[in-house]
């Protein structure tokens, strides 16, 4: 097959990103312009500001991705863009830009599902990875346990009923004074804490054993801290962080292993921003080794929101014959597997 160069564009939350990927796995450039320093001022992502910053940056980010890859836009075969789920104003910038860029060059356009992108990030460094496999996608906005039946074919086994795992990290980090973004900060400080200091709950959902719930855990942390305060007692930040994190990791691992027992996949892959949590990576790796299942995870740079993963997903959608029209719209609540 002829070489296929895909330009990926991602703007679903607070990273403006563009990337050129060859044949669905060779990353030629991966530009991510983060807005984290701005949203830190407000204690979390502000959708309107995110949208405006995407607008200011998108053209430079795309141009840099092409330059880093040593390519001109004429060399690009396909343009892939995240069209959901995400913040509608943020998505619209990427979608509108990608559409008109593709139109101006007469290139095919492929709308990509953001979570599909996260899962596909695993193909970048694991060239031999092929469906079917099971995947856990954990990020600030998503917690999904997915059966990847084939390229572009996904069966959601479980999802969060309330907060996403990453959201819980952010909220707890704020309460214990670590600030935003919570994930990396809790990860780091937990090395100095005792994960058994507090017995926080591991929620089980009776209707679907693969579903998650993190709001109870978050409340338990708050209640514990309030109770200590009432008694005039102080707490060790690292102990709370480590205990909270252990509860999240335990639930993610337990659910994943239950799914592995039922579906008996050859491989299990994690993805999404929280997949760069070092404690989660280690725990999943060990648990998969015990089951004799191959474990895949992307490097942290491909776990965070990036456009290389969108280019990879776009590659597979394009190969499968799925292209989008000039009327492609942003779909903030897009479901996985829906086109």
């Amino acid at each position, binding site marked *: 097959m002829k070489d296929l160069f895909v330009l990926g564009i991602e703007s679903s939350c607070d990273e403006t990103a563009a990337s050129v990927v060859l044949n669905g796995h060779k990353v030629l450039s*991966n*530009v*991510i*312009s*983060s*807005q*984290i*320093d*701005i949203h830190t*001022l*407000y204690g979390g992502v*502000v959708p*309107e*500001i995110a*949208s*405006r*910053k995407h*607008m*200011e*940056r*998108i*053209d*430079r980010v*795309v*141009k*840099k991705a092409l330059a880093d890859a040593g390519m001109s*836009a004429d060399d690009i075969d396909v343009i892939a863009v995240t069209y959901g789920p995400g913040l*509608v*104003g943020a998505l*619209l*910038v*990427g*979608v*509108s*830009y*990608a*559409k*008109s*860029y593709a*139109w*101006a*060059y007469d290139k095919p356009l492929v709308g990509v599902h953001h979570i599909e992108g996260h899962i596909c990030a695993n193909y970048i460094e694991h060239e031999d990875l092929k469906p079917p496999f099971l995947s856990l996608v954990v990020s600030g906005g998503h917690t999904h346990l997915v059966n990847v039946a084939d390229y572009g074919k996904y069966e959601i086994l479980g999802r969060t009923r309330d907060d996403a795992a990453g959201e819980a990290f952010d909220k707890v980090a704020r309460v214990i004074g670590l600030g935003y973004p919570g994930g990396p900060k809790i990860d780091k400080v937990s090395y100095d804490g005792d994960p058994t200091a507090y017995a926080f709950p591991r929620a089980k959902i009776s209707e679907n054993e693969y579903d998650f719930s993190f709001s109870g855990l978050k409340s338990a942390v708050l209640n514990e801290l309030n109770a200590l305060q009432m008694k005039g007692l102080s707490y060790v930040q690292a102990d709370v962080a480590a205990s909270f994190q252990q509860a999240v990791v335990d639930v993610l691992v337990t659910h994943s292993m239950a799914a592995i027992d039922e579906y008996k996949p050859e491989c299990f892959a994690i993805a999404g921003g929280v997949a760069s949590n070092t404690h989660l990576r280690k725990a999943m790796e060990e648990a998969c080794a015990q089951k004799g299942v191959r474990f895949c995870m992307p490097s942290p*740079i491909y776990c*965070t929101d990036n456009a290389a993963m969108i280019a990879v997903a776009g590659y597979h959608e394009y190969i499968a014959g799925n292209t989008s*029209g*000039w*009327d*492609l*719209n*942003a779909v903030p609540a897009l479901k996985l597997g829906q086109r």
Partner: protein
Amino acid sequence: MILGIDSSSLTASVAILDEGNDLVIAEYTVNTGKTHSQTLLPMIDEIFRLTGTVKKDIAAIAVAAGPGSFTGLRIGGATAKGIAGALMIPVIPVPTVEGLAYNCYGYSEIICPVMDARREQTYTGIYEFVKNEGDAPVSDDKDMSEAGAYTYTMKSIMDQCATDIGLLADRLNELGRDTVILGDGVPVFREILDKKLKIAHTYAPAGINRQSAVSIARLGARYMSEGKAVSAADFAPEYLRQSQAERETGISADGHEGQEA
């Protein structure tokens, strides 16, 4: 040729202007309020295909740069950026209210566009067209002299801003001149304007009372000749309003360039 785009409000409008020949090659405007994200690029595609216009013949993209609906400005702005970025041509930001006023080119009255800015506010401005008596073309052939020909320049009496409709009425009364009012704010504010205005005024009719990509392209051509075009990378809409988070915290999001990984 200049591609004009205005999706700043419920109107979606695109046009191809041959500015050298002062000719509109094509225009396409819909006022049904359909999702611009789904309609704008198909509309552009349609006028190019129907007229056989070659994309590479477009010299610049004039876009309604705000104020307007934040979503509408983003769709129009990112569309302009994508095409301009790909074709490596400049973007000409045209203030939305000025574009609206340009619909009334050559009127002797003063022009006051009013856009519905919600919360009893309007995005507005006040403009007048001034004759350029001195710019009659000089011809070598005296018999063909066009000494009587003139053009107009649009001058701003009040630059575009977000303001209270009552304050706008006060300002128009102060000016005391006959006024043409237009824009999607008319159905919203007409009653209150009729009550408060003590000056002779009229409301522009259908065809010129909403945003027009032709006006954006024509005014854009003028601004480009004045050196006001920017690169696709540098273009950013003029929202005229901060985000709610910035208003509430008093912290501006400007001046943060972020980091690249």
